[in-house]
C-alpha cells in the first residue's frame, strides 16, 4: 500500500467526529457495543476525573459507551475506591480468569479486559492523562464505526502551538524516535506511517484483539502493531490526532527499561517470522550504571517480556463468548 495514500485516507483529526449524535445513531444502527477499559496502577489522582468525564459525556449525554471498566493491577492507593465511587466497573486483574497463573503488567490488564468486557469494540485509555476529554474516546472509536475495513485505531498527538505552513517534522516521543521507528524502518517499513506507535490509547475490534498474543509488559503496543500488520495489513489501521496529551514524563532510565522490553518483543517477532534465527537467545537483564560516592555501580533489572496467548485460545473465553463450536 502506498504510504502517502494510507496517510491521506486513514489519518483523522478528532474534530472530524464532533457530531456525537450522528456517531451514536450510526453505532446503534450497526448494533455495535463499545467498552472502555482503563488499566490502572496507583492512579488515584487522575482516575476520578476520567470516569466522571466519560460517564457524563459518553454514557449519560450521548450513549456511545456501553461499559466503563477499570482493570487494576493491585493499586496501593485509593484508585479502585475512587473509580468505583464514580460508577466505573472495577476489577482486580488477578481475579479475572483466576485459574491462570497471575502475571503483573499493563499488558495483562489489557488482555484480561478482552475476557471481562463485553463490547464489540474495546477502547483502551491510559489513566494518567491530565487533560482528559471525551475526544480521547470518540476520536478513536469513530473510524471503526464509519469505516468497516478499519480494525485498529491508534491515537497520536500532534498539534503544534504555532505553525506557519510548509513542512515540519512530526513524531512521537523519545523511545519512538530513537528505537521503534528505526526498528520499523529496518523490518516493517510500512508501520513507520503510524505516527505514535507507542501511544497507550487505541480502539480495536474484539475479533482482532482475541486473535493476537499480548506481551504483558512494555512490548504490548509494539507487538500489536506487528501482529495486526502481519495478519491484516496496513489497511486495517487508522490513526487519529487527538491534539495534546498532558501526562507524566518518564525518566531516561525508565525509558531504557521500556526500550529493553520493546527490543525483546521485536526480536521474538523477528524469530517467529524467520527473519532472525531461533537459536539466538537474548538476555533478559538490563544493566544500567550509577555513581555511588566516586565508584561506578552496576544496577541490574530483570525484564522478561512474557506473553499471553491469543484470548481465543483460552477455553473460558470460548465458553463465555459461545465460540466452542
Amino acid at each position, binding site marked *: 500500500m502506498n504510504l502517502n495514500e494510507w496517510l491521506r485516507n486513514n489519518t483523522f483529526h478528532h474534530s472530524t467526529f464532533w457530531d456525537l449524535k450522528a456517531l451514536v445513531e450510526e453505532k446503534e444502527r450497526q448494533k455495535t457495543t463499545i467498552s472502555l477499559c482503563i488499566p490502572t496502577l496507583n492512579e*488515584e489522582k487522575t482516575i476520578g476525573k476520567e470516569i*466522571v468525564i466519560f460517564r457524563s*459525556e459518553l454514557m449519560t449525554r450521548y450513549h456511545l459507551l456501553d461499559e466503563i471498566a477499570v482493570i487494576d493491577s493491585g493499586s496501593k492507593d485509593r484508585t479502585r475506591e475512587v473509580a468505583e465511587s*464514580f460508577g466505573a466497573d472495577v476489577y482486580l486483574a488477578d481475579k479475572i480468569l483466576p485459574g491462570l497463573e497471575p502475571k503483573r503488567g499493563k499488558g495483562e490488564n489489557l488482555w484480561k479486559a478482552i475476557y471481562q468486557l463485553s463490547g464489540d469494540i474495546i477502547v483502551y485509555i491510559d489513566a494518567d492523562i491530565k487533560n482528559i476529554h471525551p475526544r480521547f474516546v470518540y476520536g478513536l472509536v469513530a473510524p471503526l464505526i464509519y469505516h468497516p475495513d478499519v480494525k485498529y485505531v491508534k491515537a497520536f498527538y500532534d498539534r503544534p502551538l504555532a505553525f506557519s505552513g510548509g513542512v515540519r517534522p512530526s513524531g512521537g516521543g523519545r523511545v519512538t524516535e530513537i528505537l521503534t521507528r528505526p526498528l520499523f524502518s529496518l523490518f516493517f517499513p510500512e508501520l513507520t506511517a503510524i505516527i505514535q506507535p507507542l501511544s497507550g490509547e487505541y480502539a480495536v475490534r474484539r475479533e482482532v484483539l482475541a486473535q493476537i498474543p499480548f506481551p504483558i509488559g512494555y512490548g504490548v503496543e509494539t507487538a500489536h502493531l506487528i501482529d495486526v500488520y502481519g495478519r491484516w495489513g496496513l489497511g486495517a489501521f487508522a490513526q487519529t490526532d487527538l491534539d495534546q496529551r498532558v501526562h507524566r514524563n518518564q525518566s531516561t532510565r525508565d525509558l531504557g527499561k521500556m526500550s529493553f522490553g520493546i527490543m525483546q518483543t521485536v526480536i521474538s517477532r523477528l524469530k517467529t517470522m524467520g527473519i532472525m534465527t531461533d537459536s539466538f537467545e537474548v538476555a533478559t537483564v538490563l544493566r544500567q550504571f550509577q555513581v555511588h560516592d566516586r565508584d561506578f555501580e552496576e544496577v541490574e533489572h530483570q525484564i522478561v517480556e512474557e506473553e499471553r496467548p491469543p484470548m481465543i485460545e483460552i477455553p473460558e473465553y470460548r465458553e463465555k463468548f459461545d465460540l466452542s463450536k
Partner: protein
Amino acid sequence: MEKGIIDILEKLPLVQNRIHELRETILANLVMIGEIPAPTFQEAARVEFLVNRFTESGLQNCSTDEVGNALGILPGRGGNRDILLVAHLDSEYDGKVDHSISVQQNSVSGPAVGDNALGAAALASLPFILEQLDIGLDSNLVLMGSSRSLGRGDIEGLRFFLGNSEVPITHGICVEGVMLGRISYSSIGLMRCEISYKVPEEYDWTRFGAVGAIVTLNEVMNRILEIPLPRRPRTSIVLGSIRGGAGYDTIATEASLRFEIRSESAELVASLSQRIGDIAAEVSANSGAEVAFNIFAQRKPGGIQFAHPLAVHALEIMKSLDIKPRISPSTSELSAFIDRGIPAVAIGLTNADDLGKLTERIAIEPIYTGIAQLIGLILAIDKGYCDEPE
C-alpha cells in the same frame, strides 16, 4: 408562610437526592470548564464551551454578545417574569498556570475551581437537571456566563447585558461556587484603586531623601493607615497588594499599591478616595517620583431590605435545607443588579479550602444542597413569592 412556598420547601430534599444522582454531569462540566483558562478579558474559550452546552441543552437564543458574555434562554410557559442567573466566567489565572483539575472521592481541586468554575458548571448543568427533575417554569430563565467581571473587568459583562438587553429582567441570582450559606442581597460602596510611583529617567539620585519607589510607596501606606475611619457607617480600607523593584541590590524605580475602599456610605468612599489621592500627590511632590492614581472599579451601596420577600424566602429555603446562612454585603455582580433596581441575591454552592490558591479544593457532597437551594429559589421566584409587595 404561604402554602405554595411550603410545597416548594417540602420538595427540596427530593430535589437534593436527584441532583446527587446527576453528579457526573455537574462534575464533568466543572472539570471541563475549570480546565479552560479564562483570565479576565480572555474568557472566549470558556464562553464558547458554555454556549455550546446551552445549545446542546436546547436553550434558545444561545449566543455571545459584544463584550463576550455567554447567553441562553430557557423559555417559560408564558409567565411575566424573566429571571437572570449569572455566574462569572473569569478567573485570576492565565494560560501559563496549570489548570488541571483533580477529582477525588469527596472533593475536586484545582485553580479557581470554586470561584467560579463551579458557578459556571451549575449553570451549564441546570437545563439538564431541570429536565431530569421534570421541572417546568412559567418564567423565562436567562442563563448567563458573564465575562469581564473581576478586577479591572469591573463587572462589565453583566453591566453591558443589563444596559443593553431587551429582556426585561425582573429578578437576579448571582451564582457563586463558594461558600454554601453565603447570602448577599445588598452591596456596600466600594472603590478599587491603584497608586503607582515611577522614578523618572532624569531623577537626581544625589538629592536628599532619594530613596526609590518602594520607600515612597511605604510612606503613602503609612499615611493611609493613619486616616481615622468611622464605626458607623461601617468603613474600611484594604491594602490588597504591593509590587515593586527588580532585585536585591537595585533601588526600585517602580512600585505600585492596589487597595480597596469599602463603606456603607457612598459619600465616604468618595471622600476617602479624594483624601488618598491627595496624600499620593503630596508624597510625590516631596520625593520627586511620578505618581499615577487610577480607579478601576466602583460600586454604589444599596440593595433590597432584609424583609424583602426575595431575601426572606431565600433564607427560608436555606433553613429548610439545613444551610446555616451567612449574610454579608456583596461586592460582586450583585451591585450591577442593585444599580438598576432589580431585586437580586448572591448565593454560594459548596464549601472550600485553600480558597484563592492554586490548590483550591471544594467539597462534592454540599454541591447537591447548594444546587437544590438554587432550584428552590428559582421556583419561589417563578411562582411569584419573591415579588415586591404592591
